[in-house]
């Protein structure tokens, strides 16, 4: 049952997408990347926000969207050129529209008259050019009044399916004045070939009434995407036959659509996408996860059978495994979303914060089409907002200071996304002042985070800013100090299975690199055994595995043991000492050392009893089901039904050793 609340929720979801689209098109315009459809797309975005909002009685956003749409209409007709000040105005208008919609969504009344200023500015922008160019194109104007109109209305085949009814439209036109309606049945097939739900008829309507073009357009407001339409002043159409042949059918007041657009999939009566509840997709993801587990179980049983006992079964299981892999990729792809959905909010943030701080900053966004799991996308907004605020507040210098340093007055912040292997890399780079390591170290000493004697490398000092308690009152400002430190940013990113790294050059700027998994639901893992327990190591982190000789391992005072590999030394971490597992191999010459790469501690060597095998595992969240455990990224169910913990490689390096129980019947986990 579709309720009004459900429809409202859908409208706000769609409005958010339309706003994103509008921001993207505005960015394209300002960067000179505008294509032929840019202005049309922008017009349609405001138009659709207006149309849907009207149905719910959201008068304020609808009023604003209407003015913006009118302005865009003038741009479409080439009666206003897109100058930087107009773009700035449209951006401000879009920001305000987003605010008004958010207020409606949250049921909060927006401050009365808050949009008055922007409305005035938009209206006068429309009017100035309106007057200036009225003489040049009097007939095309939306406000133009003619003695009558000749309207060609040709529905697309899918018009009825979108709940539109030509009878209502023709009745509404008849309400404007006397009409002559001529139907064109030339596309109508015979009764045996007709599809009863497709629209085949088209109409030519002659309306003899002195009304504005806009009034005629309004009649077609809700079918604009489902038909070809042309509206011509009657005195304009003295030679209807010739006009028809020469003039391509176009949307109202639009430039004639170029042929490639007319033939594009837009014309298809079928929708190109379906809106699906995320809960339904998650159910599918979970089910596929269970299938993966069952398949692993079957494969395990199959391995114990004599190879030639049942060759058909073996082949079948192989095929099943392949198909399952494809099914899984397909289902995961449904969950992915372009990072655009979160990136598109950032230009506004940068504009507003830069304005507040009196800084001149240009945000360059690339790779916004990169796709990543929807959950990751949603949870990226906070960390990205924080990092950008930081870059604006602490990174980019004020214009005068930049000039004095010989830098351009305008600072640049780059926000980029790209896929590398199975990970998504997001970078935030600024060309500001960079990290002053001497100051960072001094503050860390003041705060007691580092002892006075300790000597730290540059990268170790950079790590300090991620420590809880580093962000101090001194650095808190209205912009970046909101009680959230970089430690929270790091924690958020790590909760997503990601890593954050900082590189910086004093005087030249900083770069934060976020490395995120493509999906949170499944990973390729190596099953290792430690005592009677099984753990999963993410394959992506593994460099190699080896059995060290006695002479390869050295004791380092205060740092435990290291293992020499081709001339370099890697810290050795016996896994059983970290989780207090009894009965595990303690002698590294009898166990296996798996060398793994961590983001901030370099390589470490994990001592395990044995390698069991490689398999895909379905990640079950430990936090969602119990609580967070340091060094553990999640849990999974193995083919034999046992639960195995998935190791968080980066967290392991920092994990201290714990006491190992004497001889418990069952090894268990020590928590921190």
């Amino acid at each position: 049952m579709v309720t009004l609340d459900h429809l409202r929720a859908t409208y706000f979801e769609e409005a958010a997408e339309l706003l994103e689209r509008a921001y993207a098109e505005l960015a394209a315009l300002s960067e000179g990347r505008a294509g032929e459809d840019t202005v049309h797309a922008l017009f349609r975005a405001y138009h659709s926000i207006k149309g849907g909002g009207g149905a719910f009685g959201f008068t304020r956003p609808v009023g604003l969207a209407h003015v913006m749409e009118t302005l865009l209409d003038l741009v479409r007709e080439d009666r206003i050129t897109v100058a930087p000040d107009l773009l700035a105005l449209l951006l401000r208008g879009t920001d305000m529209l987003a605010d008004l919609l958010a207020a409606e969504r949250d049921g909060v009344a927006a401050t009365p008259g808050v949009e008055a200023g922007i409305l005035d500015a938009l209206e006068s922008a429309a009017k100035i050019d309106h007057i200036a160019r009225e003489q040049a194109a009097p007939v095309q104007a939306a406000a133009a009044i003619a003695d009558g109109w000749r309207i060609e209305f040709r529905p697309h085949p899918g018009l009825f399916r979108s709940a539109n009814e030509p009878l209502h439209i023709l009745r509404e036109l008849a309400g404007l004045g006397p009409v002559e309606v001529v139907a064109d049945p030339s596309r109508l097939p015979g009764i045996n070939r007709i599809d009863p739900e497709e629209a085949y008829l088209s109409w030519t309507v002659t309306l003899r009434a002195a009304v504005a073009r806009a009034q005629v357009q309004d009649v077609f407001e809700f079918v604009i995407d489902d038909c070809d339409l042309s509206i011509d002043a009657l005195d304009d159409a003295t030679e209807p036959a010739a006009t028809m042949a020469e003039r391509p059918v176009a949307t109202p007041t639009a430039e004639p659509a170029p042929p490639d657009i007319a033939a594009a999939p837009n014309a298809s009566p079928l929708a190109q996408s379906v809106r699906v509840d995320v809960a339904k997709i998650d159910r599918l993801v979970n089910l596929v996860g269970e299938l993966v587990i069952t398949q692993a179980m079957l494969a395990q049983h199959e391995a114990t059978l004599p190879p030639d006992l049942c060759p058909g079964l073996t082949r079948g299981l192989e095929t099943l495994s392949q198909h399952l892999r494809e099914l899984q990729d397909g289902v995961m792809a449904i969950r992915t979303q372009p990072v655009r959905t979160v990136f598109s909010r950032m230009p506004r943030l940068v504009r507003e914060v830069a304005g507040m701080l009196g800084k001149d900053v240009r945000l360059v966004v690339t790779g916004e089409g990169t796709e990543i799991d929807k959950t990751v996308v949603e949870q990226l907004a906070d960390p990205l907002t924080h990092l950008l605020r930081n870059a604006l507040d602490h990174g980019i210098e004020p214009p005068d200071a930049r000039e004095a340093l010989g830098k351009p007055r305008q600072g640049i912040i780059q926000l980029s996304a790209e896929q590398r292997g199975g990970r998504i890399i997001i970078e935030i780079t600024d060309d500001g002042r960079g990290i002053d390591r001497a100051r960072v170290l001094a503050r860390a000493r003041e705060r007691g985070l580092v002892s006075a004697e300790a000597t730290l490398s540059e990268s170790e000092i950079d790590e300090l800013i991620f420590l809880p308690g580093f962000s101090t009152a001194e650095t808190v400002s209205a912009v970046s100090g909101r009680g959230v430190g970089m430690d929270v940013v790091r924690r958020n990113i790590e909760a997503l299975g990601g890593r954050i790294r900082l590189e910086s050059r004093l005087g030249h700027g900083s770069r934060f690199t976020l490395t995120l998994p493509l999906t949170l639901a499944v990973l390729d893992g190596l099953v290792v055994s430690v005592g009677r327990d099984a753990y999963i190591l993410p394959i992506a982190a593994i460099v190699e595995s080896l059995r060290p000789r006695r002479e390869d391992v050295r004791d380092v005072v205060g740092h435990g043991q290291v293992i020499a590999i081709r001339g370099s030394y890697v810290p050795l971490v016996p896994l059983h000492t970290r989780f207090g597992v009894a009965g595990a191999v303690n002698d590294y010459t009898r166990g296996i050392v798996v060398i793994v790469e961590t983001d901030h501690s370099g390589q470490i060597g994990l001592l395990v009893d044995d390698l069991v095998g490689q398999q895909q595992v379905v990640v079950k969240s430990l936090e969602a089901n119990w609580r967070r455990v340091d060094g553990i990224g999640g849990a999974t169910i193995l083919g034999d039904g046992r639960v195995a913990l998935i190791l968080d490689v980066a967290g392991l390096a920092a994990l201290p050793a714990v006491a190992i129980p004497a001889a418990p019947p069952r090894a268990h986990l020590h928590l921190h």
Partner: protein
Amino acid sequence: MTIAGSGHGPASRTQLPALLDLEAADALCQSLREALALDDIEFDGAAVERVATPCLQLLLSAATSAAGRGAQFRITAPSEALCTAVAELGLSGLIPLER
């Protein structure tokens, strides 16, 4: 939808239902195909209360198909609603209504 036939003979006379909206289009199309496969056809349009374009499109298509085969297609006693809709859609000369 059922279209009630009133006898066997060279021309079958059937009654159009009260609702000729989008939901009714599929059933109407099926009935028209069956009726036209048999013989000349005459519809009684007196009961029609509500009409939508998809159904009028079907009636026009059936009328054209019948004419193409030299068969007869008539709608007798059309209701006010049917007449108005046919006129409003500019189909007056195309769908044969016999008042």
